[in-house]
């Protein structure tokens, strides 16, 4: 067997895609050790990337979900911090999760936090840049997002749930899980910072991030939407790198 065929077969076995052990190992049962090691190391990588999700579902469920996940979604990069891009979507349709749909939503938030953490660094937009904008050009401004900016909108209170789990013994009594929350994440310096956004502000930011001008972004927002306050909040947080029209 060629080395390439040998490695394809070995990989299929250790990842659980195939039950046919690799050929040629003198003690065939030893292949099971490699399978265990691969499963343990990839499960540990997912656990490191989705710590709150793991607590929410319990270690046993998480381990089973990880084993099913890794069979079809092996890492495509060797840095395990990146592993699990598809894990939130996988969890959303995993058995037994239908009654706990906030779980994949928290996973989506944890994934966004990792993406924010690992994004390329960039200078944030200095609010002073507005000084040079003529008043009649203001409505036509558009913004480039900081590489680390992530907007996570959910029908569940995922921010509260995540925050509660930053304590060793989470206090969940005050959490209204069915209250929708939107979070804006950004890493302007060393650490990821996040803010809860009001619903209208989340729609505003969502539009700006998809390339809309200020005028376009405020269409269909409630009359009492405070544009100046919202824009200033995003600027101070470092959500943008550049403005243009």
């Amino acid at each position, binding site marked *: 067997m*060629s*080395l*390439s065929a040998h490695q394809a077969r070995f990989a299929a076995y250790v990842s659980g895609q195939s039950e046919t052990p690799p050929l040629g190992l003198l*003690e065939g049962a030893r292949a099971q050790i490699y399978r265990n090691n691969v499963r343990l190391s990839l499960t540990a990588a997912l656990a490191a990337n989705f710590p709150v999700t793991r607590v929410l579902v319990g270690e046993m469920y998480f381990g089973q979900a990880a084993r099913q996940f890794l069979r079809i979604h092996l890492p495509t990069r060797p840095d395990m911090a990146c592993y699990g891009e598809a894990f939130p979507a996988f969890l959303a349709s995993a058995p037994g999760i239908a009654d706990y749909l906030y779980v994949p939503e928290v996973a989506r938030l944890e994934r966004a936090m990792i993406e924010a953490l690992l994004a390329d660094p960039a200078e944030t937009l200095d609010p002073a840049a507005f000084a040079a904008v003529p008043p009649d050009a203001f409505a036509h401004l558009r913004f480039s997002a900081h590489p680390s900016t992530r907007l996570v909108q959910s029908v569940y209170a995922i921010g509260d749930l995540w925050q509660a789990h930053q304590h060793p013994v989470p206090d969940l009594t005050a959490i209204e899980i069915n209250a929708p929350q939107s979070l804006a994440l950004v890493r302007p310096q060393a650490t990821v910072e996040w803010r809860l956004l009001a619903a209208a502000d989340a729609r505003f930011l969502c539009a700006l991030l998809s390339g809309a001008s200020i005028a376009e972004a405020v269409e269909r927002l409630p009359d009492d939407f405070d544009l100046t306050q919202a824009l200033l909040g995003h600027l101070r947080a470092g959500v943008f790198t550049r403005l243009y029209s």
Partner: protein
Amino acid sequence: MTDTTLAPPRPESQVAGLAAHAVGIGLRADHHGDIAALLAEPGAAMPVGFLEIVDFLEIHAENYLHAGSPAHSLLIDVAERLPVSLHCVGLSLGSAEGVDEHHLSRVAALAKDCAPVLISDHLAWCRVGGCYLNDLLPLPYTSEALETVAANIDRVQSRLGRRILLENPSTYGAFAESAWDEGAFIAELLKRTGCGLLLDINNIYVSAHNQNVNPEAWLAGYPLAAADEIHLAGHTQQNGLLIDTHAAPVCAAVWRLYEAVLAKIGPRPTLIEWDAELPPLVTLLAEAQAARTRMLP
């Protein structure tokens, strides 16, 4: 180039940019806080003698690839104070499909950022079909595998513009089709590529035990004189087999094997590897000190 003489280097001599008797420990996320505190305020809240004991720090390259991330920034700070060894686990030197150029470029960028004194990876593979298995998987020691690994090492050395070290693997079984002893296979790779040897004594012990061979006999065919670095680590027993967990102190038998190797080739930069269930930094320092004591009788 491989040095084939067995004359022990003098204690004050250099091996691959480090003092021959240098000792190091792995820099792991669990200790990032401790190390950051040391860099911010030398001596504060640190185990006594950290800088007196630790001559270099070794990192897993794959954990520090993202420029601007807290881990990467810490590494840059560390590299200004101490020599860094870039130990890769993801170059997959044994992959039949060749080297992942994208990953190699990122390792090259990291090497530019932290100017490591050593760069190494394993005689193993972890990548197939563009996917990574996050483990160091075994190779049959065949002529085809030899050609593959040699070509991959050539590619890595040429892209990085420098020589790397190749670490011997820990294995749990042999392949029927292997035509070479592990030591002879590695010696041939060193000869063909000019790379150096990272001799992992614990891996020797684990592999030999798991294949019912005396560890000293396992070492017999090894190009020991080409060792530019030595790794020491702990393993775990499981159903009569030894698993290379890096989750325990170096065991007495591995210390004895280390002493036997030192008696043959003299002191070599030695690293304590501890990757899981990490103890406090002070425990790692004691292990590093125990290695140094054996190099400076």
